[in-house]
């Protein structure tokens, strides 16, 4: 009975996931097909009617996209690093349940998630700090994200208390414990929350459009967005219809995540063997 289950389950499970993946792909297939199709159509096609890369060349040969691409890389890398620093520091402090003031800090952070000042006061504060229209605003402003910080703390909670205790006995300072125990034990957490931050930074356009008016500081997403959304400005493209270019831009937005995710996944598939760390 049990043996039979073990044989059947992986197959059924695999089949179900194949079906699920297909269903997930169908709506995206429309975008993919349209991005390669030189003819534009409203309806769904199984395959491009007249296949061609003109949509993509039109996006990639656009010289004004390269500078924004650099901005995107810089802000994403710097921002993710800073954001992970803040989240891990904050999360590490929040698992010190006995620390005086710990609950105050926790509530202080939770409070920021629930109450916001509004658009204009935020702008006035950023302006008085001379952050508006600089690259700093898009790096610093999203760096503290309490949602991710709490998730991080959630992961840290899973680290056995005995590890901290033995580290303290060995005379490790909090910072040393953090670097020697907490970080190595949290690869999956760092990978997943790092991914969340990277996605936030890479996809960010709200902060750009509200706080930056110098288009030399715009990122890749801002530029692609204007291709995707700027549909009401007349454009008759040479090689491709407006629909082809638009769909190519949508795919270009997704590509980095298609490439990046499989690299991060190795941190998710390996279970941590705590015994091994301990010894």
């Amino acid at each position, binding site marked *: 009975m049990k043996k039979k289950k073990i044989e059947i389950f992986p197959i059924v499970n695999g089949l179900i996931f194949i079906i699920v993946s297909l269903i997930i792909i169908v709506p995206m297939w429309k975008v993919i097909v349209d991005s390669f199709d030189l003819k534009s159509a409203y309806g769904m096609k199984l395959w491009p009617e007249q296949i061609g890369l003109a949509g993509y060349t039109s996006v990639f040969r656009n010289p004004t996209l390269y500078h924004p691409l650099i901005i995107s890389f810089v802000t994403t890398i710097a921002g993710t690093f800073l954001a992970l620093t803040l989240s891990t520091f904050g999360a590490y402090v929040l698992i010190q349940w006995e620390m005086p003031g710990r609950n105050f800090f926790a509530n202080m952070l*939770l409070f*920021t998630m*629930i109450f916001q*000042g509004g658009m204009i006061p935020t702008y006035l*504060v950023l302006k008085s700090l001379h952050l508006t229209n600089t690259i700093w605003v898009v790096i610093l402003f999203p760096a503290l994200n309490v949602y991710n*910080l*709490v998730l991080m703390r959630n992961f840290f909670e899973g680290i056995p208390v005995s590890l901290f205790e033995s580290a303290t006995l060995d005379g490790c300072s909090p910072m040393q414990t953090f670097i020697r125990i907490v970080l190595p034990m949290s690869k999956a957490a760092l990978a997943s929350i790092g991914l969340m931050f990277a996605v936030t930074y890479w996809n960010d356009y709200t902060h750009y459009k509200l706080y930056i008016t110098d288009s030399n500081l715009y990122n890749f997403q801002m530029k692609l967005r204007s291709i995707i959304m700027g549909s009401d400005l007349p454009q008759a493209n040479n090689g491709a219809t407006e629909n082809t270019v638009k769909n190519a831009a949508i795919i270009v937005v997704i590509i980095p*995540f298609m490439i990046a995710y499989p690299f991060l996944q190795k941190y998710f598939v390996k279970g941590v063997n705590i015994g091994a760390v301990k010894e």
Partner: protein
Amino acid sequence: MKNNKNQSAVSNNGSRSRLAAKIYKYRGFYLMFLPVFIFAVIFFYLPMLGIRFAFTDYNGIKEATFVGLKHFQKMFSMPNFWSAFTNTLVISVVKLFLTTAAAVVVSIFLNEIINIHFKKVVQTIIYLPHFMSWVVTASVFSLIMAPTAQGLVNTFLVNTGVLTSDSMIYFLGDSKWWRFTYYLINIWKETGWQTVIFMATLAGINTELYEAAAIDGAGRWGKMRYITFPALQNTILTVIILNLAKVMNLFESAFVLQNDAVLDVSNVLETYIYYQTFNSGAIPNYGYTTAVGLFKSLVGCVLVLICNNLSKKIREGRGIV
């Protein structure tokens, strides 16, 4: 152990020096919290002074004048306010639970896939819809759900004999079907992304636990039920409670999928306020929008506090933060 410490803290009356000693012991941690504290103050607490505008008339031009609770009175007396309010609560809470449940189920079964490459491919595919903007998603789904021969879903239902070609369903244009369709689209778009956090949690399970369970004779279902699912419990609680804080902020997904015919079931607070301002022909009164924001925050706050207290029962007295 915990109890012990509590007792000793209570029994000691020279608490001031004790406290000082304790603070000294944790000095390194305070230092580590300092940057977080500074960021919170600058980027959240300074702008929060703007909450005072909720009690004023302020259009960004003339000095704000104190009007007391005027904006709240107006808000509560607006004819469709309460229907928008309940729509928001229902739609976003149901959406939250459905997408989280879907993500948990998918994560648990994804965790059982043995072939790593297949697992990676599946994971990547199901997380990609998250990166399509809502505008694009809406336009693709209004095609797929269309009540015409071009609509994939209706065509499928007609071909399988569920519907006839005259009785096609206008999923996004019919009040009876709109919410169902909305949830479906949300599950499609966000399930995969939510599994990222759950998969990361599962990666943290001590493999020894599975080995021990196997020795105890636990089968696949037993392991899933007694190890995998409990391991996710904390994360599930955290995700749900954190999201409850933002429940009232629902805007974009409802906005792009709604239309004139389904507003009775789809008009949420944010879209309602948007139409109010957009159609009023006047420059926005920030006092009013701040008041609406404050109201939403209060609702979020209540929801979080309630659920946090419930979660303490499960989490041995600790809240989610």
